[in-house]
C-alpha cells in the first residue's frame, strides 16, 4: 500500500524574504501546516550556501520532523533571488528532481521571455498552467521543453 509512496509532496517558489511566489501542494495539508511548511522551508534553505548540497533532509525542524514528514527531503535551487524547492520522498532521485527544477525554470524563462519574479506574481494563473503541463499528481508529466512550450503557445492563442 505504497500509495503515498513516491510523489512530489509540494513545489514552492519563494523569494529571499520568504514571500511565496508559487505553492503547489500534491498532498492534503491544512492551512496551518502549509504555513508552517512554508516558513520552515524558508528557514532551512536560505541559510545554505554554495558549499552545501542542494538537498536538505529536514530532520531538526519541528513540523518536518513530525513522523509523517520524516521521510521527506527538499531539493532546491536558487535563481537570482528566488528559491525553487521540491519536496520529495527521502528515497527519490535527487539529481533527477534537481534537473527537473532547472528544466522548469528554462521553460518559464522561454515562455516569459527572460522571466523575473514579477512575471510569476502577475501571471500566477499562467504559472499554474506551466506547472500542470510539467508536473501532475505529484509526478513528472512532460519533460520536453519543445512540447511544453508548443502547448503553452497553443493555449495562449486561445486567450
Amino acid at each position, binding site marked *: 500500500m505504497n500509495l*503515498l509512496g513516491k510523489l512530489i509532496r509540494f513545489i514552492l517558489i519563494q523569494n529571499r524574504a520568504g514571500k511565496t511566489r508559487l505553492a503547489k501542494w500534491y498532498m492534503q495539508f491544512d492551512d496551518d501546516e502549509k504555513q508552517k511548511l512554508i516558513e520552515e522551508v524558508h528557514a532551512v534553505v536560505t541559510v545554505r550556501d554554495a558549499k552545501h548540497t542542494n538537498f536538505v533532509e529536514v530532520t531538526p525542524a519541528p513540523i518536518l520532523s513530525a*513522523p509523517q514528514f520524516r521521510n521527506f527531503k527538499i531539493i532546491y535551487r536558487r535563481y537570482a533571488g528566488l528559491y525553487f524547492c521540491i519536496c520529495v520522498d527521502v528515497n527519490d532521485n535527487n539529481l533527477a528532481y534537481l534537473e527537473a527544477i532547472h528544466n522548469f525554470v528554462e521553460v518559464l524563462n522561454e515562455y516569459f521571455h*527572460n522571466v523575473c519574479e514579477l512575471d510569476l506574481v502577475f501571471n500566477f494563473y499562467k504559472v*499554474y498552467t506551466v506547472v500542470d503541463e510539467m508536473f*501532475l499528481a505529484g509526478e513528472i508529466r512532460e519533460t520536453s521543453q519543445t*512540447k511544453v512550450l508548443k502547448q503553452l503557445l497553443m493555449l495562449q492563442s486561445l486567450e
Partner: protein
Amino acid sequence: MLAGSRPGVGKAATSRRLAPLCSPSPGKSKEAEIKRINKELANIRSKFKGDKALDGYSKKKYVCKLLFIFLLGHDIDFGHMEAVNLLSSNRYTEKQIGYLFISVLVNSNSELIRLINNAIKNDLASRNPTFMGLALHCIANVGSREMAEAFAGEVPKILVAGDTMDSVKQSAALCLLRLYRTSPDLVPMGDWTSRVVHLLNDQHLGVVTAATSLITTLAQKNPEEFKTSVSLAVSRLSRIVTSASTDLQDYTYYFVPAPWLSVKLLRLLQCYPPPEDPAVRGRLTECLETILNKAQEPPKSKKVQHSNAKNAVLFEAISLIIHHDSEPNLLVRACNQLGQFLQHRETNLRYLALESMCTLASSEFSHEAVKTHIDTVINALKTERDVSVRQRAVDLLYAMCDRSNAQQIVAEMLSYLETADYSIREEIVLKVAILAEKYAVDYAWYVDTILNLIRIAGDYVSEEVWYRVIQIVINRDDVQGYAAKTVFEALQAPACHENLVKVGGYILGEFGNLIAGDPRSSPLVQFNLLHSKFHLCSVPTRALLLSTYIKFVNLFPEVKPTIQDVLRGDSQLRNADVELQQRAVEYLRLSTVASTDILATVLEEMPPFPERESSILAKLKKKKGPSTVTDLEDTKRERSVDVNGGPEPAPASASSTPSPSADLLGLGAAPAAPTGPPPSSGGGLLVDVFSDSASAAAPLAPGSEDNFPQRAFPKHPRISAGGSEFVCKNNGVLFENQLLQIGLKSEFRQNLGRMFIFYGNKTSTQFLNFTPTPVPRCGLDSLTRTHLNLQTKPVDPTVDGGAQVQQVVNIECVSDFTEAPVLNIQFRYGGTFQNVSVQLPITLNKFFQPTEMSSQDFFQRWKQLSNPQQEVQNIFKAKHPMDTEITKAKIIGFGSALLEEVDPNPANFVGAGIIHTKTSQTGCLLRLEPNLQAQMYRLTLRTSKETVSQRLCELLSQQF
C-alpha cells in the same frame, strides 16, 4: 533569467489590473494594504450581488482578482459559485480561471461538488483536447473521493481509447494515478490494465513518461498483473541508453537522452526481482553496463546540467543493481564509480556517493570494495562543510565497520563527536556504543570507549548504553578490576556527567573491593568521591548511590559507621522523596540488625546476566498465548497494578515475590533470572529500552529481589503479549478488560500498512485524558534507525461511557524487525489513573507479498539459498489438531503464496513470497512438513537474510 527587478509591468491585461493590489511601495504599511484589499473585496462582492448579470469576461476578471487576493494570503469566503459558473463557459480563459479557483480553493460544499463534477463530465465528453486536459488536471489536483466516485470509471477509458490525443493521455494517466492513490478501492483493475502496460511502447515519450509513473504505482500493489511491464521497460530502457545523444530530439536534455524517463523505468524495475527470462536479464545487464561505461566517458558538455542528468540515471541504475544484489561484477563496478565521486568537487555528488555506498556496504559482494575507501570517508568527516554530508560519512563508516577496522572507525567517530553538531550527537553515540560492543575483542577497550562517550557527550548517552556497559562488566570477570579502576579515575574529574556517576556508583558498589588495596583508592576515598557527587544528582541516581553505599557496608566494614551516619542524616531519613526515604530507612536498619553473614548473602555480587537473554525471553513470551491477556484473573491483577502505575509508590506488599507484572511479561518461567524492578522510577522506560528482556534490565538495581529486602517500587506498565492469533489475521479484539475493549482492523500492502484501532468504553462513566500512543520498540542490538514508522493523530481525550473512538495508525516498515510496537494507553477513570500497554500485532509477515512460482523455479531458488545462515529450521510439536485445510488457510493468512503441486510429497506445504521493507525486499521460501504419527512439524525457512528467516520461522511456528 530571473536576474532581478525589471519594471513591474505585466504583459497581459490581467497583470495591469492586478498591479495596484500587489507589493505596496515601501512607505505604505500593512494596514494600508489590508484596507485596500478590503475595499476591493467589497467592490467584487457588490458586483457579484448586483442586479445586472455579469458577462463571462467580468466574472472571470473578478474571480481572478479573488484568487490573487487569496494567494497574497487573505481569506476568501465567496466567489465559489461564480467560479463554478465559469466552468461551463466555452472560452478557454474563463474555463481555466474557473478550474484554477476550484483547484486552489477546494470547497467540500456538496452542492457545489455536484455542479463541479457535472462541468467536468461535460468537458471530458467534449472531445476538445484542451477542455479535456483542464478537466483532467482539475481531477488530478483535487483528487477527492467524490471525484474518484464520479470519474474512476471514465478516466481509464480515456487513457486507453485509440483516438485520444497524446497530451490528453498523459494527463489521464496521471489523473488515474491520483485517483488510485486517494481511493484504490474505486479504481478496479480491468481490461485497461494490459493496454496501459503497452503504453510503455508508445511512440510519444511524454506518454511513456506519464504511463511509467502510473504503472510503477499499480505494479507495487498488483505485481502479478503488471509483470509483463518488466520486459517492456527493459527494451524501452535499452533503446534509450543505446541511442545517440541526438536521436530522441525533444527528449534529449543537455546531450543526455531522456534522463527522467530512464530514471522512472529504472524505478519501475525496482518493483521486481531480477528478470527470470535470461534474454531480458541479459539485455538489462547490458543496459546497466552501458550506463556505467558512459560515466567513464569524457563529458559531452561542461554544463552541470549535463553531468547532473547523466548521474541521475547512473545513481538510479546503481540503486537497481543494489536492489537486485545478484551481480557481483556490477556491484563492484558501482562501488568503484562511487569511489571516484567521493573525491569529486561537486558537494552534491560527494553526498550522493556516500549515501549510495552505504547500501552497497551491506551487500556481501561489495562490502570489501566499500572498505577500501575508509580514509576518504574519514577525511570527509573532518573536512566537509555541510553537516548533512558529514552525517552521511558517519552512516557510511558505520555501515562499513567490521572486526578489521572497528578500532579505527570508533576512534574517528569519538573524535568527531567532540565537535559534532548537536542534532546528530545522539545518533553517533548509539552507533559508537553498538560498534564498540559488536566488535569488542578487548573489553578494556570497550569500557574505555563507553566511558569516553559519557565524558564527551554524556547528555546524549541514553539509558540503554550505560545499562549495557554494566551488563558486560558484570559478565566478564577479566575486565572488572580494570573497569573499577577506570571509573574511579574518571570520577576524579571536577565536573563529570551524571551518567558517569551512575556507572561509577554501580561498578564500585560491585567491584570497588578490587581496587581498595591501593591507598589512593581506599574504601573511604571511594566513598567520599561518590558522595561528593551525591547532592548534585537527580533522585534516581541518588537512589542508585544509596544502594552502592549499602553494598559498601558489606564490602568494607571499616566505612560502615560513616555510611550509617549518612543514611541517618535528615536529608535521607526525612527526604521528601518517598523512594529515597524508604531506601535510607531500610538500608540503615539492614546495616544495623543483620549479621555479617546475612549482609554478605543479601548484598552478594550480582550474578552474571544470561547471555542472549532477550531472544530466549522473546520466545517465552510468545508461547504465552493471548488467552492470558483477557483472562479475568489477569485483568484484576493488572488493574491493581495499573492503579499504581503513576509516580506514586505502591504499598510495599504490592511488589512482593515474583510480581504479577513480571509473570504477565512471560518471565515467570525464566530460570533463576533475577527479577526485580529497577531502582529508578522510570520503570516503564526500561521495558521499552530492553523490549522483551525486561528482566535483563531489572537486575541492574544493585541487589535483586531474591536476596534483598522488599522495597516498594513503582511498577512499570504491563505489556501484554499481544496475540500470536493476529499473526495470520488482521481483524479482531486485541484486548479487553472490565473497562476497555480494543478492536483492530488492519490492512497491509508492500511495506506500508494502515491499522484502525477502536477503543470502546465499556463503562457508563467518561474516560478523561484518554491518550493512546503506539510506539515502535527496538531491541538493544538493533541499529539506531527505527525499523517501523508509526504515524497517527491523537484521539479525542474524552470517551463517553459506552462510546467508541477510532484511531488510524499509518505504518511503514523501514527494515526487518522482531519487536512488535507497543500501544500505551493512559486515561483517567473515576479519579484513578489507568495505564494499559498492549503489543500491537504488527509482525514482519504483515509485509509479505505472495509470489506464485512453478515447482522447478521453487527448487532452483531453494538450492540457491543454501548458505547455512539463510536457512532456519524448527521442529516442534503440534499444538492444534493437524488439519490440512486449516494449515493451508494459516499459510495464506501468514501472507505467503501457497504453492500447490510443488513439493513431491503432497502432504507437505510450500510457500513463497517477498517481504517488503522500505530498504529492501527479501524473497522467502518456506516448507512445512507435518508428521502425523509423531504429531510434529518441521518448518524450514530460506531467505536471503538471516534475520528474516529467523523471525518468520518463529512467527509461523507458533501457529500450528
